[in-house]
């Protein structure tokens, strides 16, 4: 077998294994409470009947591993269970919200990725000049700030003082694409700022690293133009680290939406999960948790596989 195929297959198998363990961990995460989960969910003042009802709902009389297998097989069949709080099937609760969250993250990614890579290349090209240092200070500040700080500053300036955009990102079914885009301006800006800062710093580091390679010196000593050195000699080698940076940051984005959705009261999965945690609605927490975690695992897996594919030493094995 070609070593490339073998490596990718190994990586995919490892990814599948990781997903399985992650699902078990998330299930176990809600089981670690010493004593009775039902009692803990309802609090000390709960009536015995209510406790009994929840115990039955969660199937607490059966061993944990059987409940896990049930839960997992249900999940794989698309049955995400029922909410404890309002008795609605979780699948219905999540459907629209998942779409909203993906929309928010997608728009942010579409904006942030090109900007961050461009800035990273510019900073690397003009490294150790005032421009590079200025970009460095700004991005360092941006990654130092909590998302909600950036979010509220943007709301204060652009929504409350300038009235340019709405402060609350309300979207609803049937909204036109343009209206939706307008509604999510601020959350997208908030997410983008943080992600751009991370991605740009990592892109810069990757390019500086490649530009310091001896083969770049070889290219310079051949008298090649700067454009050719960058495009032909640096880029193919910087590609794999940059792809990695992008995908890792997309994974970050998926989780970063949680706080941003709460700031902007955006009807997405993050908001739903936080509410469910506050209400101790365990089945909803499990379902949303596994969706977030799986997305994260899959994106990181993609990064690994792309990195393997972009490596010439593996592609053209001896």
């Amino acid at each position, binding site marked *: 077998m070609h070593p490339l195929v073998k490596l990718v297959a190994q990586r995919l198998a490892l990814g599948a294994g990781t997903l399985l363990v992650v699902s078990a961990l998330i299930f176990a995460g809600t089981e670690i409470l010493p004593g009775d989960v039902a009692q803990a969910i309802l609090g000390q003042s709960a009536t015995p009947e209510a406790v009994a009802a929840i115990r039955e709902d969660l199937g607490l009389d059966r061993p944990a591993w059987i409940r896990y297998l049930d839960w997992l097989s249900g999940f794989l069949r698309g049955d995400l269970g029922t909410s404890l709080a309002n008795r609605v099937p979780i699948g219905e609760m999540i459907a629209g919200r998942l779409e909203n969250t993906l929309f928010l993250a997608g728009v942010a990614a579409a904006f942030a990725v090109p900007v961050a890579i461009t800035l990273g290349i510019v900073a690397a090209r003009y490294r150790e000049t005032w421009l590079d240092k200025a970009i460095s200070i700004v991005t360092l500040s941006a990654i130092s700030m909590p998302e909600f700080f950036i979010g509220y500053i943007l709301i204060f300036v652009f929504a409350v003082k300038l009235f340019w955009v709405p402060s609350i990102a309300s979207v609803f079914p049937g909204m036109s694409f343009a209206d939706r885009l307008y509604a999510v301006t601020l959350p997208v800006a908030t997410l983008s700022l943080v992600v751009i800062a991370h991605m740009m710093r990592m892109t810069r580091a990757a390019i500086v690293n490649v530009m310091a390679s001896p*083969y770049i*010196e*070889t290219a310079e*000593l*051949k*008298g*090649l133009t700067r454009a*050719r050195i960058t495009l032909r000699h640096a880029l193919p080698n910087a590609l794999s680290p940059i792809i990695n940076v992008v995908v890792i940051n997309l994974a970050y984005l998926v989780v970063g939406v949680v706080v941003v959705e709460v700031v902007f009261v955006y009807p997405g999965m993050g908001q739903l999960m936080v509410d469910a945690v506050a209400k101790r609605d365990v089945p909803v927490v499990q379902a949303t948790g596994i969706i977030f975690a799986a997305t994260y695992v899959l994106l990181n897996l993609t990064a690994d596989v792309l990195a393997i594919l972009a490596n010439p030493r593996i592609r053209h094995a001896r």
Partner: protein
Amino acid sequence: MAMLLEIRDLHIEALGEDGRWQEIVKGVSLELEPARVLGLIGESGAGKSTIGLAALGYARHGCRLARGSIRLEGEELFGATSEKLREIRGVRVCYVAQSAAAAFNPAHRLDDQVIEAAVQHGIMSPGEARAEARRLYAKLKLPDPATFGRRYPHQVSGGQLQRAMTVMAMVPRPDLIVFDEPTTALDVTTQIEVLAAIREAITDEGMAAIYITHDLALVAQMAHRIMVLRHGLEVEVGPTERILEAPREDYTRALVGVRRVQKPEKPRSGGAPLLEVRHVDAAYGAVPVLFDVSVCLEAGRTVAVVGESGSGKSTLARVITGLLPPRKGEVRLDGRPLPPSLKERAKDQLRRIQLVYQMPDVALNPRQKVEEIVGRVLTFYFGTNGAERRREVERLLEEVELPAGFADRYPAELSGGQKQRVCIARALAARPEVIICDEVTSALDVQVADAVLRLLLRLQEETGVAYLFITHDLATVKAIADDIVVMLEGRVVEQGPKSEILSPPHHPYTDLLLSSVPEMEVGWLDRVLRERAERKARGEAVMEAADR
């Protein structure tokens, strides 16, 4: 004759750690006629690579050409615009780097990189350049010249890459090629082949060259004139014969001088061996490295284990010290078998065999003072502490010819040679019977290395310690060994007393190894190549470098 390259009073500066510019080349002038070869020789830090790059009007990141003049056929490169320099680089002056493995771009095929300069500068069409590359691949004796260029850099050996890099420099037919230590990373038997190929090619093509190296014997084979550099200054310059036969400066004399260290072979005592390696097979995981290796060391003697990279000589040291338990066979000390693994050995067994490493930089803990480094051994093995320990450390430092006050220094405050002496003092502190010396002089400059060898010989006379000397450097072997073990690909090909091994008839590999070591003599390379050709013509068995 008109000069091809004229450098006048060149000053080059490097950015120091304190953020200030420091001169690393302090006013060097040189000139080079067309189709001639100038050798630049010096130790690390002499500024030779920096000067070589300046011939292309180039300074590395963190360096700058401060003042002076660099003229190529009268055209000034110093302060020239980058457009102007681009028309020179890869057209009229080309560069061959020390590590071709790093200097080739891993993402592209060899051919695409080899013809790039010629095609990009419009010197040749891609088709012409490819044909020219194929012709030169053949000329440099690369395998399958027609298809060689289709491979990626990581798919060919180090020696082949170095030749491919030479082809890359020659395809645009430049007036001048700068060779920057092109064979330093290669094994000695590969080096001679690459050397011969490079020389033939530049002579036939009528190109001028600057050949940079730290090895005077080597550059004497390549250059018409030699410039000796030290600390960024010219020591002397002259025709190769003159530099070798009548050096004017002390420094040059030291470089030319045959090693002053010369130890007569000690006769065998015929007593029981002190250290014995018996029929050892060893492997790293599933990869076998040693095959039926037997070596024997008598008290007070020196056995030199010689071999090139991959010969298994360092693995042998790991087996003896117990870092790598052998698959088969055993190691005996004083007639009793040693437990195969380090963990099973008694403290006293560990004490009796000490190791000195190649790189003193990483063999000393940078966070410990010399007193702690050497003293820990005393505390650990003999329970010596306090003032007594301090006295003993100072005595050991004097033993290795270092001032007693060095006990309070950190390794970073010592030079390379001083660090290696501390490593020797640390080994001595255990009062060992065997010291394994693993390439102990190869990271040191020639003169420092000689002094360390002399120290080791004196210590042997005083303490009667036995040395197992692992090295790839035959000059060192000739200087200090009593017995020699020659290794190739994990096997011992020949062993015996120095006088026997070094005089004919040789095993074919020993012969290849011995004849590949550059000698301080003009015309050595021609002589060796001629002899090899004659013997081949006579149908004798002549081994060739594997060049993997």
